[in-house]
């Protein structure tokens, strides 16, 4: 199944995207700042009652993470589409879905990993206890790659379309619902003392499923966009 | 026939508002869709005639 050079091409895509993100660090950091700000607004809006914050915490943090991921989707393919790199990527002796996995991985490293790393801090802002914080980080670790996977389908579909920023939100958010339910559910059930295993394993199932389908859908969408 | 009188039928055992709203909105939607389609078709046909 593995063709010679497939792994090289995948690494090549990841390396280039990470290098580009390094060149534009402020752009890459924007979604993370957004996440922190949104998460900090909620206690100000809802009030500082610890019990309330603890109940809404998992949901708020997950929704904020989801929006932060959405915010960075525009960058995944747009620049490549405009400067012709995408055309070159499609015309390579490697299957396009493999290259898409590379793009998704790079997006996750740039937009997903910082969210996972920051989540314990934000969790403590919302008064989550040690175990809940750990579950929050774990659920984000399992969930954010799925968000990147699904998000790139939308990003590929709206390439070069007017009003693409809003449209991608409309397309992608319904697809994010299961991840949100299981992700926030894992933290909530840990808080309720039920145990988070069920939700976490469902998150894992979502990840596997999206790994299976999303690269093909994205590849199809990219070919359509390039026609 | 299940109902005793006309007013009983309209009242729907006290749930008239809910039941009739559901039915009327559904009917309106279906009728509106048919009308909209009819107009769309007329417009498309007129445009085509103008071309030929």
């Amino acid at each position, binding site marked *: 199944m593995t063709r010679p050079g497939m792994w090289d091409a995948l690494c090549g895509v990841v390396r280039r995207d990470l290098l580009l993100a390094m060149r534009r660090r402020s752009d890459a950091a924007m979604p993370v700042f957004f996440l922190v700000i949104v998460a900090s607004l909620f206690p100000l809006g809802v009030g500082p009652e610890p019990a309330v914050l603890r109940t809404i915490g998992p949901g708020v943090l997950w929704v904020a993470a989801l929006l932060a991921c959405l915010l960075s989707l525009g960058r995944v393919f747009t620049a490549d589409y405009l400067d012709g790199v995408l055309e070159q990527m499609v015309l390579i002796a490697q299957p396009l879905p493999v290259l898409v996995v590379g793009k998704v991985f790079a997006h996750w490293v740039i937009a997903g990993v910082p969210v996972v790393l920051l989540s314990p801090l934000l969790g403590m802002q919302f008064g989550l206890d040690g175990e809940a914080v750990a579950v929050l980080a774990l659920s984000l670790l399992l969930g954010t790659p799925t968000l990147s996977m699904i998000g790139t*389908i939308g990003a590929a*579909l*709206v390439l070069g*379309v*007017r009003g693409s920023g809003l*449209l991608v939100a*409309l*397309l992608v*958010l*319904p*697809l994010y*619902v*299961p991840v949100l*339910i*299981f992700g926030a*559910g894992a933290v*909530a*059930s840990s808080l*309720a003392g*039920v145990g988070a295993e*069920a*939700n976490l394993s*469902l998150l894992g199932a*979502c990840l596997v*499923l999206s790994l299976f*389908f999303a690269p093909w*859908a994205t590849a*199809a*969408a990219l070919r*359509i*966009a390039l*026609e | *026939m*299940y*109902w005793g009188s006309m007013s009983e*039928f309209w009242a*729907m*055992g*006290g*749930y008239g508002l*809910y*039941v009739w*709203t*559901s*039915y009327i*909105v*559904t009917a309106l*939607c*279906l009728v509106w*869709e*048919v009308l909209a*389609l009819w107009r*769309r*078709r007329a417009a*498309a*046909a007129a*445009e*085509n005639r103008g*071309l*030929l």
Partner: protein
Amino acid sequence: MGINWLKYSAPQAFYPLAGKLIPWFSIVAALAIAVGLYIGLLVAPTDFQQGESYRIIFVHVPAAWMSMFLYVVMALWAGFGMGLNARLSFMMAQAIAPTGAMFTFLALLTGAMWGKPTWGAWWVWDARLTSELILLFQYAGVMLLRTSIDDLRRADRASGVFALVGVVNVPIIYFSVKWWNTLHQGASVSMTGGSKMAATMLTAMLLMTFGFWMYSMAVILSRSRCVILEREQLLSWNKSASTPEPVEVR
């Protein structure tokens, strides 16, 4: 000329055929809905648990079934379109979306109308309602994606990909909300209220569903005729604007 007439013959043969079928579907739809309404509103006895409000299900359940059925059919047509490179398939998919969205909206609205007297709330986050809501968003996504892409071929295919992705999503949402509810409060709400359905009720519901189905057929065929007209119009306009000349090689 090396034009592939086969591809064009499809919509052109389909157009008159659809025209002939529409009246029949309309008549059957009108009959089925009339009889369904008669049985549902006038003959069927009251439900012991819910009282007369249960009569909403004669529009609610058919609308909900149609909304899901039409989405799957739409995605199937889009899938055929991409697999066989057939323009008519995409036209059918395009024609289905608005009707499907309308039934989704009706299912949500009548669901709220039924929920208020039954559960005491317009809206409950149960699996069926939530997946129906997401379905509405997905219909909106399919239609918006189509309208925001100017190139027809690309619009067809992009919205088709999204429709297909959505087919996977809706059952996942259904089960995720179900598990979510059971994991959380266990406050599961069931639509049927546990009551066994009387034969007359079932008959009315099935008749209404059949009527809605036939109505959808008529409306979708008629809309696909509009779509064909509108697209052919563009085509003929461009044909007259620029006639391609043969190509020379030397």
